[in-house]
């Protein structure tokens, strides 16, 4: 899959300046989804900077981020890795036919107590 998505595209969508990163790894150290991710928050920072966008776009890691803002809050340089992960995810689902989940998947996932908030969140995160 060649996406023609560049470093500049991701920086523009995210509003992040990856050059501020000093590679301390605190973002990944505090990430509650660390074990589930192939590429971790600090890797998103340097992989975006080095133009390795396709690898990130093809990785399931973009669907494992919980968007809990721990990496963003605890970064000593305010790099905001969560925004990079979001930008890569957007770059994927904004393409035709690349929704990760749609309303058609929801009936099979419903549980009695499942709050609407979960469904609305999923549609915002996984679908355009």
């Amino acid at each position, binding site marked *: 899959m060649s996406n023609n998505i560049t470093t500049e595209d991701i920086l*523009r*969508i*995210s*509003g992040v300046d990856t050059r501020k990163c000093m590679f301390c790894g605190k973002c990944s150290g505090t990430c*509650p*989804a660390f*074990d*589930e991710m192939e590429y971790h928050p600090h890797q998103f920072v340097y992989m975006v900077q080095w133009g390795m966008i396709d690898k990130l776009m093809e990785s399931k890691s973009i*669907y*494992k981020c*919980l*968007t*809990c*803002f*721990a990496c*963003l*809050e605890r970064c000593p340089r305010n790099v905001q890795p*969560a*925004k990079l992960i*979001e*930008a890569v995810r*957007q770059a994927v689902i904004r393409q035709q036919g690349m929704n*990760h*989940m749609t309303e058609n998947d929801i009936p099979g*996932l419903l*549980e009695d*107590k*499942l*709050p*609407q*908030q*979960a*469904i*609305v*969140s*999923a549609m*915002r*995160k*996984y679908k355009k």
Partner: protein
Amino acid sequence: MTYSYYPGCTLKTKAKDLDRYGRLSAEALGVTLEEIENWQCCGAVYPQASDEIATKLSAIRALDAAKGKGQKLLTLCSACHHVIKRVNHDMQTDDNLRLKANNYLKLDEPYLGEAEVVHYLEMLRDEVGFDNIKKAVKNPLKGVKIAAYYGCLLLRPSGVMAFDNPECPTIIEDFIKAIGATPVIYSQRNECCGGYISLEDKPQAQKRVDAIVKSAMDAGAEMIITACPLCMYNLDANATEHRLPVKYFTELLYQALGIEEEKEGA
């Protein structure tokens, strides 16, 4: 004090208790909640991408309604609070969004982030005051050890949310003390429960929930309280190894204020 109240989608459906106990308790404390007319769902997730505009419009409409009434906008659901507060901050600071959103909405006058967004807990702390709540309590929950679960959305990013200290918050513990119970401090109280990942990867949510419930249990908690319907669901439905009762903070407030008995006695 009268607030423009934004209940949100889930408080009208699966989280009716959070809403009902919140309304009844506010009334008992002399706070009036006027539901915003024709409010639209906030989308539950703040659109982080800087080029997202349409996904922020429903929050801007609610904010403009509160501004029109000259009232603060009061939220109860953590997700609504997070989205609306952050979109409001964007409308105060992001010229590009201000221009495009206002061009699209064509309001009577442009919305520039004038409304103030207040969470119900902030209203209790800053408007009513925890000391006054303590005085109004008829049934103190004496001896009950309660773990406050903050999760992510109320606290982070602290620069915008300005809710409490993001790593060492006290507002829910102060609330617990005000209703006569004992707060339990535990390390996982401001870590993520997994949130919406439950639909995508249940084991991942279960792992997070077990870590949180175990942390609360090890600290001696008998119960967890939250302001978030999704945390409520996760902490209950996705608990596997450890389990604690999970309640909305408004339900305990309602109990402590003795509203039920008053109504039955009347």
